[in-house]
């Protein structure tokens, strides 16, 4: 069965329909896991994974199934998928030189991060919607964001752009809105909880019943 599923991965007619899957995608350290944790904490009381200042802390695709989000706008039942941050490549030297890891730990983390990125890319075909999480204090014109934007447009996948970390002094959600003019952009701070209700409302209004 697994062989058949893999063979027909790209054939919509033969694909088994699962729950509504919403993936959190973006660069490393954009705050995807922090946001996933905040969402789960608010609706299930659980958390998704650990967060760290060192990039590639999330190195596996983590899914929480059937999260029931209820707001004044309605209800959304969604499988929330937290993914490793996407990058062109992962260099162990980054961890060694910048985050004071010993060589062995850096190599291990880099290898796991590469696996995680591939897993996240594989999971793109399972998505029903994407939450593109960006660091509002960072330049949005990054290769990762451009590639993901092109991917969702090619697949006609619904996407909401989350401008995270708006609590930072140099955050600029307007710059992000300018880049993603055809998609809704919501500025939040997953860390402080700022404007999260607006994001939940937007999610329920866009994807919910």
């Amino acid at each position: 069965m697994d062989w058949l599923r893999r063979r027909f991965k790209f054939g919509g007619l033969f694909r088994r329909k699962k729950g509504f899957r919403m993936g959190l995608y973006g660069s490393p350290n954009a705050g995807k896991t922090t946001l996933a944790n905040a969402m789960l904490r608010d609706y299930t009381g659980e958390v998704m994974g650990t967060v760290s200042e060192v990039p590639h802390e999330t190195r596996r695709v983590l899914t929480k199934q059937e999260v029931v989000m209820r707001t004044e706008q309605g209800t959304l039942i969604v499988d929330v998928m937290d993914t490793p941050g996407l990058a062109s490549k992962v260099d162990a030297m980054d961890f060694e030189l910048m985050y004071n890891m010993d060589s062995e730990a850096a190599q291990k983390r880099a290898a796991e991060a590469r696996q995680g990125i591939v897993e996240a890319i594989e999971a793109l075909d399972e998505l029903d919607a994407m939450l593109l999480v960006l660091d509002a204090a960072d330049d949005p014109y990054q290769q990762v964001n451009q590639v993901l934007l092109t991917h969702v447009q090619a697949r006609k996948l619904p996407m909401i752009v989350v401008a995270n970390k708006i609590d930072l002094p140099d955050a600029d959600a307007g710059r992000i809105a300018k880049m993603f003019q055809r998609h809704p952009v919501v500025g939040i701070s997953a860390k402080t909880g700022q404007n999260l209700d607006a994001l939940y409302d937007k999610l329920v209004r866009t994807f919910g019943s």
Partner: protein
Amino acid sequence: MSEVIESYIRRNPGLSEKDAFEGFLREERIRAWVGADESRKERLRKEFGRVWGSMHGDGQLARASRAGPSGPASLEQPRTVRVNIQAEPEQAAKQVPPSLAPPSADARKLSVMCTVCGRIDVWMQADHIGCRSCGRAYEDMLQLIRVTPVGPFAFLFGEGWVGYATAGGIVGAFTLLYFLLRGL
């Protein structure tokens, strides 16, 4: 503290911070890592400065040099840093490209389609990702992300040879059924 930087500073105690950093940049694998990336160089300069300041601020190196050759510092063995040395360019050239080599135990087939030949035959082995059908190597992992629209044919039957095989199978099955029914 970054072991690589710390180890370099320990191995070159007489240098000023500026000279030490320049020398550090000339180390083969550091030079390869920095490449032409100015931001990496700048981040590295900051980190180097931080480690340098921390080591000299602690007085570790100052005490070591004051202690002289018979002092405790001379008994201290240089710290060994385990590093995976990259294959030399000549060696690398002789190796069979992993994309064409037969699958080994640690290779993993990915559920992504090759953006060149359309086949689902992309493998990952260590840090190398490549298509075994057409030999396309994916140095940039983001290139694995599909950015082309899916047409109605691919939507129904799948993309690449999978789609053609599925469509062909269905047509074949109906043809067979037709001839079977006609023969009855």
